């Protein structure tokens, strides 16, 4: 595991260790902060998605792929989003102290985000949750995403490359013009296979065919997925069949985002037993085989 991704796991380390550190005598220091970040850019990338870049603290810029932030969205006209909104890390630049998000304008919160202009302040809180883990032994990984799930997978492209792994991304969207972050993956020398509803290439049967070919070609040491339970099930089936590891980033409505309220629970199948886990705290990245749709 690379040092960089180790940090992701440090942030999500078992709670006992974190609490234990109070005994060490060292002055206490926050590892999750809420801060007023400065908006650098907030632009449409296509008809549905916006790309938001903010200047932030060192702690926030150390966010890892698969982690997320809770954004306190501004109020759009006539609406009052009360809760923070979870947003996956789309990119982090520790040197420039920036983090990036990719969001789809959907409801009150994202309409509020849409009002932000460069120079405005946005209250961001993070980094939160357990991100993706990259095994240094993996040479080829496959990322399968749909919708906003592409945003979540995006930072993997850079991390995998830094880790010496080759990425193949299978991206699903309604129409070709709604595909996002293809360029970003290309920049990090990933292969991108796009499937769309309008071209009738996005059905599970076709995606399965694509994935089987990648496995056959020895180009799939692990699955990473987000944004479609239908595609997740395809990967679970293949992973079980072929004996491959995998990770999935899950979503669930959140209130606190830091494990306090238990509103974001999902069921997981852990060795045949159904257990309840908090997506914000125990995830959002989980073992592919334990996830239930």
């Amino acid at each position, binding site marked *: 595991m690379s040092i960089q991704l180790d940090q992701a796991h440090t942030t999500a380390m078992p*709670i006992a260790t*974190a609490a234990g550190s109070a005994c060490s005598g060292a002055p206490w220091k926050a590892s999750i902060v809420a801060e007023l970040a400065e908006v650098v850019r907030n632009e449409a990338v296509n008809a549905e998605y916006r790309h938001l870049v903010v200047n932030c603290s060192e702690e926030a810029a150390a966010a890892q792929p698969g982690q997320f932030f809770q954004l*306190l969205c501004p109020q759009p006209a006539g609406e*009052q989003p009360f809760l923070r909104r979870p947003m996956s890390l789309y990119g982090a630049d520790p040197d420039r102290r920036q983090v990036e998000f990719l969001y789809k304008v959907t409801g009150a919160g994202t309409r509020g985000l849409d009002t932000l202009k460069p120079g405005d302040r946005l209250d961001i809180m993070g980094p939160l949750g357990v991100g993706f883990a990259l095994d240094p032994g993996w040479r080829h990984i496959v990322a399968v995403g749909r919708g906003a799930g592409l945003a979540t997978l995006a930072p993997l492209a850079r991390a995998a490359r830094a880790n010496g792994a080759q990425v193949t991304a299978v991206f699903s969207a309604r129409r070709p013009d709604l595909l996002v972050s293809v360029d970003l993956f290309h920049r990090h020398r990933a292969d991108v296979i796009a499937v769309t509803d309008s071209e009738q290439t996005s059905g599970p049967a076709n995606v399965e065919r694509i994935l089987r070919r990648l496995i056959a070609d020895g180009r799939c040491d692990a699955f990473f997925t987000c944004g479609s339970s239908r595609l997740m099930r395809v990967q679970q089936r293949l992973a079980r069949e072929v004996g491959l590891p995998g990770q999935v980033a899950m979503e669930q409505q959140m209130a606190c985002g830091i494990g*306090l*309220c*238990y509103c974001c*629970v999902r069921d997981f199948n852990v060795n045949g037993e159904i257990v309840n886990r908090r997506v914000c705290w125990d995830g959002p990245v989980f073992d592919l085989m334990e996830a239930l749709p």
Partner: protein
Amino acid sequence: MSAASNVDLSVSIGGLTLRNPVMPASGTFAEGLEKVMDFNRLGAFVTKTITRELRAGNPLPRVVERPGGLINAIGIPSKGVPYFIETIMPHYAAYDTPLVVSISAPTAEGFASLAAELSIPGVAAIEANISCPNIEEDGKAFAMRAESTQKVTRLLRTATELPLWVKLTPNTGDVPEVARAAEAAGADAVVVANTILSMAIDLKSFKPCLGNIMGGLSGPAIKPIVLRQVFQCAKAVKIPVIGCGGISTADDAIEYMLAGASAVQVGTATFLQPAAMTTIIDGLEAFCLRRETPRVADLIRGVIIEEADEPDLAWLDPVS
């Protein structure tokens, strides 16, 4: 900061001295917050309510937002008492902050036996969340009525030597009467209050927004209502009243203390500003410094009610 400023922030709650009056509200606090704030700064820890039975909690969705607040129907997912003692309690042992354990049970006997079982080293006080349904009395919450409150409090009192806080529901018509019943039965403090029963309906599906149909409203929206209940309770009882409802800022905490609260619990605000509690503590100290109030405890019941003409008996309930 306290040492430097010489403001005495401590308050005394029924025999227990807290370093300051600010603590979390049950169900809005967990170990994870350690990453956000120094736990040694809090007045107390208050755990999520635990039950003896293993419980899954309510169906999803469990929260819905509304202007100025959120409605939740989490339920009480509970892993039982041994899990609590073995897995949760050790996290708090490292800190110099009293641990208040919130408990609930479907019967008065159940409350008492749970309190007895949890009266162990490491637990500083018991908070009895009696806003839960009493299965012996057609499922109405204990705290809806003075009689059931008195009964459960009396049994609890005999079951534990620990300071006993009784957390009331704001959903009843006469909270001060219920507070008096808790006091008469031996409670060391009352927590006023819990969430206010509410509902929201989705206009696309025509279904309730919560899996549980109804849920409890918390956050700034409820502050004026609960503040009034704290004021009424502080006039009705001599034991300390702990205020809880919509507190987000130091100003909110001060308003509660003036109304009669000896301490405050912060819930929903932590979901929006995770460091809300420490910000409030700093703000309390700054307020006392500015007003040259040597002890924050001087604010308790500090509201000034002037002798006035008998108010017009209004279309709303009169001044009590």
